[in-house]
């Protein structure tokens, strides 16, 4: 019984980090109505950025957020502005242009394989950072400290984004665009600038997620693919476009992955996750917290 509680806690912690990795995906979908297939790759870029920042300067891994989050914001902002925006303009009349999805897939392939070319296929990890292997002992249970930090970061980030969307002018403009882009344009909102900012915010949250992962996770060129597929599942579970939904979806996946192995071979949990995803897709495609008009 104690094992199950311990696994559940660690599952929730890891799950909220999954949720954090998917948060940017859901923001970008909510505003641009496009599934960003390059999201895992942006996470990967963030992880390499955080890894090299910490390795070269020797600072505490979490201090890297100060550099990684803004850097990723500008990366996302200009990626959307230069590469994706022209396609949106060309396909102005299509609500969910498939060509944009295809272009993000191209970005995924370029980023992953450029990283492979530059840094090689080897796994890297921050082996001696202050958080590595740290365990919190509660009675007879062991809770992973880097995952606990990650969970707290995920909650703070979610609250921060919520505050930003509710209380700032830019946040309101983003929400207006996500609800009705034509009406928002008529109110004097520059739709494409909003897209840039939303993409930047999505990339920045991927950067924050990357910083929380780096202290305990391996870094390699295709690490993003794992989180990409998980991210898709999480956002569909939680409802495409819902930030709270991303957290809940992530925690569900985290729980299945950590508690599941008590009852079956660990690799089977992956099949269960895909099965659950297909069931949700067929039964309630708008997800747990999604809006019906989004599908």
């Amino acid at each position, binding site marked *: 019984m104690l094992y199950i509680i311990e696994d559940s806690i660690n599952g929730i912690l890891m799950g909220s980090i999954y949720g954090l990795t998917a948060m940017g995906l859901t923001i970008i*979908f909510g505003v641009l109505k*496009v*599934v960003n297939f390059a999201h895992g790759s942006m996470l990967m870029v963030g992880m390499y950025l955080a890894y090299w920042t910490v390795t070269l300067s020797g600072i505490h891994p979490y201090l890297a957020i100060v550099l990684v989050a803004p850097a990723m914001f500008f990366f996302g902002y200009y990626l959307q502005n230069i*590469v994706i925006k*022209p*396609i949106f303009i*060309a*396909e102005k009349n299509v*609500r*969910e242009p*498939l*060509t944009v*999805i*295809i*272009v993000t*897939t*191209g*970005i*995924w*392939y*370029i980023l*992953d*394989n*450029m990283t*492979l*070319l530059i840094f090689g*296929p080897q796994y890297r990890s921050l082996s001696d950072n202050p958080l590595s292997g740290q365990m919190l002992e509660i009675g007879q249970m062991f809770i992973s400290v880097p995952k606990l930090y990650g969970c707290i970061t995920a909650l703070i980030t979610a609250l921060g984004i919520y505050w930003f969307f509710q209380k700032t002018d830019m946040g309101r403009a983003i929400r207006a665009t996500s609800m009705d882009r034509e009406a928002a344009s008529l109110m004097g909102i520059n739709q494409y600038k909003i897209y840039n900012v939303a993409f930047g915010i999505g990339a920045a949250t991927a950067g924050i997620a990357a910083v929380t992962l780096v202290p305990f996770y391996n870094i390699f*060129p295709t690490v993003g*693919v794992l989180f990409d*597929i998980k991210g*898709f*599942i999480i956002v*569909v579970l939680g409802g*495409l476009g819902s930030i709270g939904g991303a957290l809940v979806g992530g925690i569900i996946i985290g729980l299945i992955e950590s508690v599941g192995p008590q009852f079956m*071979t660990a*690799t*089977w949990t*992956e*099949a269960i996750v*895909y*099965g659950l*995803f*297909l069931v949700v*897709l*067929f039964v309630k*495609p708008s997800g747990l917290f999604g809006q019906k008009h989004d*599908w």
Partner: protein
Amino acid sequence: MNPKQINKIALIAILLIAFGLPLVIRSATYLHILVLLFFYAYLTTSWNLVGGFAGVLPLGHAAFVGIGAYSSTILFLQYGISPWIGMLVGGVLATFAGVLIGLPTFKMRGAYFALATIAFAEGFRVIVENVDYLGPFKINGPRGLQIPPLDTGLANFLFTTKEPYYYIILIMLIAVLILTYVISRSKLGYYLNAGGEEPEAAMALGVNVARAKLIAMAMSSFLTALAGTFYAQFTLYIHPKSIISLDLSFEIAFIALIGGRGSIAGPILGALLLRPVGDFSRIYFGDTLPGMHLVIFGLVLILVMHYQPRGLQEPLTRLYANLVQRITQKTTGR
């Protein structure tokens, strides 16, 4: 000469070259590359039935390749049933799977269908990787299945040389191209086209868009599974990481998109342009610059989407039309 005659001559010339190539190319390596090129052209043409004409984005076709490969191989290894029969069994199973995914998802918007196909393919791969025996059938998990090349011959779909494989995949490719041509000019083709571009308008006119897409999906998954059997018999070794991989699903889609989806020539052009890039950069840069060909794929994909969203077949078709016109003028003395 009028344009019709020129088209006929061009078609005959292409067919002659295609059937004559093995007489000229004696190198097994180049023949292997050509067989794979036709294999990809075939897969992409099958993909195109649903991905091109129906206006959705399937990203899990590797699952159907896997169903085809595993069905025929299991029947052949365990029961000695000819892969030609196994091929059809795989096709039927894949059709069921395709309809099962299509049934609920075709009513949803594009992104959901793409995600559902990815989840289906990945889920299927995970299951195959984790199962050694499915009932009486030996799947052998991540180790995959090997076909011993013992009783060669047409009945067993096993040959010692590459030429028979070349002609089999070539004939399969021609057959699927003719099928695509017939469909694109049939009522179903028009329904698909209308449903892909303006689903609301098409439905308002009484077109059952979801049903048309479902038929396209059923045909596409059936045809894709046939290629799976071919691949198993050609390489004699299948394992889930290679045959049900996300990479294969994406490569099929990439070739179609770069060549031009929704056109008959697009998949062929895409395979002709991209496969050699992939093969040769793997041969020459494989050691020094790993992943180079995928960077090129990604770049080409983005550039094509920017400048030729309908694919490379569009400028090339125009070029060909100009050429035909000029020949017509010259031969008839304008």
